[in-house]
């Protein structure tokens, strides 16, 4: 009995680490130093136990000869919720960069932002608009009439600023062309907005 329990424990550990690859009964027998017959018996017992017990959220599924853990179907809703609601997190580095550029250089077009950053910036811009921190404030002159971006009132509130003039002054010698300088600029920016300060 004790040995059977220990074997179950090992099978649980092994199936857990093998993830989506799963393991065959042959592999399990090899890894736990036992016979395939014994593993078959153990797996049958485990499959049934997992299925029956209401406090278990996992099941063992056999797929193309390999056994693997899957979550119980009845818990699909809370997993769905996990996917849909990534934890409210602070802004990503890219978003912060774009936000800094918009804050100091507004009104500014996407192409100009991308020139400064040297990378495509569509997504951070749309993240920032979705979060209501930046918005379209007009159109540039000339062909294309590109969208001009600026910060919102929500931006001021979010960072506890009275108005745009209370943004910390931009260091004079910052050349945003160079990676290191951008980092430096970002550090200043983040320091300025650190909620702990």
């Amino acid at each position, binding site marked *: 009995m004790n040995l059977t329990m220990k074997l179950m424990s090992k099978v649980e*550990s092994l199936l*857990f*680490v*093998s*993830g*989506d*690859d799963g*393991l065959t009964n042959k*592999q399990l027998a090899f890894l736990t130093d036992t016979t395939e017959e014994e593993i078959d018996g153990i797996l049958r017992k485990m499959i049934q136990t997992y299925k029956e017990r209401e406090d278990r959220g996992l099941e063992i599924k056999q797929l193309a000869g390999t056994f693997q853990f899957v979550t119980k179907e009845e818990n699909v809703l809370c*997993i*769905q919720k*996990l*996917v*849909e609601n*990534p*934890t409210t*997190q602070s*802004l*990503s*580095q*890219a*978003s912060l960069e774009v936000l800094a550029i918009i804050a100091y250089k507004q009104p500014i077009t996407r192409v100009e932002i991308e020139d400064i950053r*040297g*990378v*495509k910036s569509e*997504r*951070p811009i*749309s*993240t920032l608009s*979705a979060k209501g921190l930046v918005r379209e404030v007009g159109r540039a002159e000339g062909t294309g009439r590109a969208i001009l971006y600026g910060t919102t009132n929500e931006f001021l509130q979010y960072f506890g600023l009275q108005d745009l003039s209370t943004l910390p002054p931009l260091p004079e010698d910052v050349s945003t062309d160079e990676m290191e300088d951008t980092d430096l600029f970002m550090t200043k920016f983040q320091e300025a907005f650190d909620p702990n300060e």
Partner: protein
Amino acid sequence: MSYEVKTEAFEGPLDLLLHLINRLEIDIYDIKMAEITSQYMEHIHAMRVLELNEASEYLVMAATLLSIKSKMLLPIHQDEEMEDDFDVQVNDPRDELVSRLIEYRKFKEAAHHLNEMEESRHLYYTRPPADLSGFQSNQQLALFELDVNVYDMLGAFQKMLRRKQLNAPLHTRVSKQDISIKTQMRNVISTLKKSGGKLSFYELFPSMDKMTIVITFLSLLELIKRQFVQVEQKSNFDELFVLLRKEDIDSEFDYEIDE
């Protein structure tokens, strides 16, 4: 007294001094300068194979030891003593060295604790988050798309190295072949092209061979530096994705790499 000296056993002059203090059973607060200096000299003499870089540090310490030793031989003039910078020494020429040794010893001990924690952490395993992309709509992808920095990627790589070790004996082993970073950069680009310009970070590492994984990673770093590709992450819970940024890169690519 003669004994064998293992150079790699010491993490610098302070480590060597601590070793000597221990071995000679010297009180760290009352270091016998003559004894420790001669032992130290004997050691660095035996350590001639040192890299030049490190050798200079050992030699600076030797000079410091000699200077302390000579200061201790001098009669103390009260007036001069008073004019000394307080930061350097108040009354005992050994003070600064002793406090450095004690400070260093603290971290050497802390490093030992970390080593023990590392070993006990090796006793259990976690698993990567499950791929939940099937649950996610395109709208959500757009909303939560957030870039990550190179540190996140290095972390992901590290995790992957640990993961990729799993299953190895149960698969046929990839035969070892020498591939260059340059070649692998081309491979990564063409793999990305084939899959429409976007691929999960982990999918770029199908091979179990550690060498290939490392080369692929280095080539990826190079591609990022040259802005051929970009790395993105949708959210906390999701995978890293590698995006192809420059479409028709072949000519430019060849030119740049070959230079």
